[in-house]
């Protein structure tokens, strides 16, 4: 069965990845507004350890098992970030860079060691580095869609609280909102979306999925709800374009294509958006000076 020239499996996978792209855009918006854009990057680089660890521990390589491992490792990476912040005088930027570098190194060492430790090859785990949707099955796509739906529902339930914390955490804390809990939920959702984005975009680039669409959406609107929806739609489009192009262009990882699609959307938004776009601002400054 094909549709528009695409095989059935590609279509199902495209739907799953599109759902992930949407949810990542929505969740990422909260993170970007909260000025925590690169928290997702630390979680993303840590996931590789979890993927390899889950495979070594269970011997299974189905997506659910590997992603559970990835999520555990992402949470561990974020916990390491908190520990460094709490117990050393290393500043936040260096702490993030340390978690990114060291956890990714451990992940690479584990994946590379697999053949030497009695496994026939690297067990297909390297597809989690740069994303490889061709290897996904329809069942995987259903799993990803489910995760994306849950994350989107959580954001819609937490919309008011998240908005408040994102725009004025001090005010939220002063009026008695549990800012720490809300922050933890936001960061936890980002970790979940980074993990859900792994199969399509890969550990190295998946941070783009939670950063670029929100930043692009921000150029078009000042309203929180509109921004979330717009970021979701942009993430969705980028994900679908990536999947379709990589299906047509074998030998190229999906991740970079998704990122380039998102970057194109960002470029258009940055230049052409009304009010905040580059052209609009140039015009305003010209008319002001005239």
């Amino acid at each position, binding site marked *: 069965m094909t549709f528009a020239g695409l095989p059935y499996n590609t279509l199902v996978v495209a739907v799953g990845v599109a759902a992930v792209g949407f949810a990542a855009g929505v969740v990422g918006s909260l993170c*970007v507004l909260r*000025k*925590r*854009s*690169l928290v997702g*990057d630390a979680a993303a*680089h840590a996931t590789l350890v979890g993927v390899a660890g889950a495979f070594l521990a269970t011997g299974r390589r189905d997506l659910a098992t590997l992603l559970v491992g990835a999520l555990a490792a992402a949470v561990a990476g974020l916990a390491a970030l908190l520990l*460094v912040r709490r*117990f*050393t*005088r*290393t*500043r936040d*930027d*260096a702490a*993030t*860079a*340390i978690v*990114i*570098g*060291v956890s*990714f*190194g*451990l*992940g*690479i*060492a*584990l*994946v*590379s*060691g697999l*053949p*030497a*430790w009695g496994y026939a090859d*690297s067990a297909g785990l*390297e597809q989690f*580095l*740069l994303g490889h949707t061709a290897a996904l099955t329809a069942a995987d796509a259903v799993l990803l869609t489910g995760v994306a739906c849950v994350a989107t529902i959580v954001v819609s339930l937490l919309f008011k609280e998240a908005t408040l914390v994102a725009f004025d955490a001090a005010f939220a804390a002063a009026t008695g909102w549990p800012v720490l809990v809300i922050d933890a939920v936001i960061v936890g959702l980002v970790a979940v979306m980074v993990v859900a984005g792994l199969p399509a975009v890969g550990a*190295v*680039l998946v*941070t*783009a999925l939670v*950063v*670029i669409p929100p*930043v692009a959406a921000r*150029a078009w609107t000042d309203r929180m709800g509109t921004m979330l929806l717009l970021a979701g739609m942009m993430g969705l489009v980028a994900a679908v374009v990536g999947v379709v192009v990589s299906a047509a262009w074998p*030998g*190229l*990882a999906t*991740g*970079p*294509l998704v*990122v*380039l699609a998102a*970057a194109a959307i*960002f470029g258009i938004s*940055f230049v052409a958006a009304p009010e*905040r776009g*580059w052209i609009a*601002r140039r015009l305003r400054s010209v008319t002001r000076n005239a």
Partner: protein
Amino acid sequence: MLFGNATFFGGDPAIHGWAMATAAVVAASCALVGTLLVVRRMSLLGDAIGHAVLPGIAIAVLSGGRPGGLLVFVGAVAAALLTVWLIQGLQAAGGLAEDAGAGVVFTTLFAIGVVIVSAAPAGTHIDPACILAGDLTFIPFDTVAVVGFAVPRAFVAGTLAFIVLVAAAVVTWKLQVFTAFDSAAARAAGVPVATVTAGLLAATAVATVASFDVVGAVLVVALLVVPAAAAELLAHRLHVMALVAIILGVVGACVGYLAAWHFNTNAAGMIAVVLGLEYIAAAILAPDDGVFARAIGRVRLAWRVACEDRLAGVWREEEAARGRPTGATPTLLERCAAEWLRIDGSFVRDGVTWRLSPRGRREAETVVRSHRLWEAWLGRHADLPLDHLHPPAEWVEHHLGAAMRRRIEVETGWRQSDPHGREIPPESSSQS
């Protein structure tokens, strides 16, 4: 095999030696540059540059440059400067936060690089797997002749890069330090801050590109930031920090390489892991800033406070026998402290009770004097109600030195009594 593993060479020590030496020399370059990145809070820019040099390298290689050759260095430096220019441009023109801008720019440039590498014709001198985790596998075999010896090209390039970076660091060190610690003052003093920063970014690109074959684009951040961050916990002066970072980087590269050989896995990954272990060790064991040192410091402070409180408590009880009684109940820690003070000889037995020995009395009077001087000072300057003077003084009394007590005494006009009307004991003549 996806990644080049250290055991690929079998057991030839010379080959392993060259691979390890190459890793060590690029780690040294990265640690030197990373020191400045870390103190300038530019660690994530280092990460971004590590990713973003990929398209520069890829285009240079496709235009006929050799890995480790001059063209590749030029391409990488151009890509690094472009990265920073784009991030700053987005920041200035679009009001985009620096981290969000970095997230957009480096992922995009890296993606462009991956696509170029993937689309490159076969036989090009760039290997997609090498992008992510480096590949030492072929480094020892791609040699050039140096005074008659066959030396790996990557080692020669890495060594040259290190020499250039050290020379640049030595020449511009004062400017870098000034800019790092107070860029506003540096600008006011006529330091070309933008040029100094651009130089640091170019240096980052040079160190990154020298490391590219060894650790790849993603793991270079480990070489840049981890040794420098560990060194920052161990050293307090910037040039010492740079030296310690270089040593940690070199040790990490060698130990990581040997570990990769032993565990039969990727060298770059293991180097990052060993550097991480070095950082953890530094965070725990650093003499001044380590978790241990600070825990011990806190315990010692708590113990000193308990001892001094008990001495002062007994002193006040003795004073109260002549005047008003005090009602402080000692805590468990203070009771332990009291036991110690008996052993220590600060308390002496007087029939059935304990009283202060001459030395204990001197120490107690110092504490009470600090306490009441502080109350007097607060009473004069802080406009607090009388019953608010005691709690801050109860804490500050443990932290006032003789010189500070002297200044307060002068400030408060040589008062003989605190605001509660109690006498301030005189400074004891012989301080221990």
